[in-house]
């Protein structure tokens, strides 16, 4: 290996800021899931909406409600079932994100 290549290799550093940005984008994609033919993004907003819908204030059959999915399509869903899926997906991916975030922080 010539001197120039060697010095370049030494100068090369792990770009933490960019790696974290890419990681965030990666995990935003993993928050998406399909349910009842619609596309949903797991997160606090959807959890709270499912919670409110689960109270049965806006429907004769408790828990059954029409929600707008990621692609603005109205989809008939069971609020409690959807909430369970959202919670699972959200926590699973947040944990994975944290674990990978900590892992890349160790890189030099």
């Amino acid at each position, binding site marked *: 290996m010539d001197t120039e290549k060697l010095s370049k290799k030494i100068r090369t550093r792990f770009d933490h800021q*960019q790696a974290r940005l890419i990681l965030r984008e990666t995990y935003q*994609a993993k928050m998406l899931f399909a349910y009842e033919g619609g*596309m949903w993004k797991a997160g606090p907003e959807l959890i709270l909406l499912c919670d409110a819908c689960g109270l049965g204030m806006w429907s004769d059959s408790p828990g059954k409600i029409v929600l707008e999915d990621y*692609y603005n399509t109205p989809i008939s869903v069971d609020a409690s079932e959807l909430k369970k899926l959202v919670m699972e997906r959200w926590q699973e991916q947040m944990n994975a994100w944290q674990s990978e975030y900590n892992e890349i922080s160790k890189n030099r």
Partner: protein
Amino acid sequence: MTTGALLFAFDSEIKYTKLAIECAKRIQQYLDIPVSLVTDVNLETDIFDQQIIVDKPSDKNKKYHFDLGGSSAWYNFGRNCAIDHTPYDRTLLVDTDYMVNSADLSPMLECSQPFLAHKSVQEVFKKKKRIERFGTKNTQMWWATVVIFDKSTFSQDVFAVWKMVEKNYYHYSNIFGFDPRKFRNDFALSISLLLCNGNTIPTQCDIPWPLFNVYPDIKVELLDNKWWIEHTTRRICIEHHDLHVMGKTYLENLYAV
């Protein structure tokens, strides 16, 4: 309903069929769906669900490869026949240089949107994702790298118009104001989506996350299932996200093809 992936590969100086085999392995590993190949010669492999033999497209582009320091032939015509060739009800059409590293596309295959493609793009060493534009009209571009479609009327229309644009590429280059000398499926697909949506920008056809592009001037290494990506004096690693690795020599070296 059947779901599967479809790849197109026609060898030139670059062995696209070899890349297709590696691409198919990754699709099966992460998405667990069958993969079919559209090519011009039968390959000695059982990785594919079906091999659909067609004539090699008579037209080809010359593509300059930054990493090769020269150009090679690139048979990118005829992808708009995917809807005719696919044996599946819902199909994932991907370029052979698209490296599947996750199951992120699975929900897209399970939902009921008739046609999906990437519109936003993230270059791995850039801060912001962006939407590519083309021509003098600054038309928004969808990428033909990853396309998910069913056999609905909308999808059939998109492919029919895509074919029409390919056939009359010079005419459309005049209308949209782009260079017609090199055929780009991205342009043809974008025009098709616009026309099929009544000359308005469709919002229901976007894959929600950006396409991660690794341009050929960026060095790529695959170590323990982690993609180490290096540019000038910076490097990062990506493990659980799909990548569009545009430097074919890096892929050829990685897979020793």
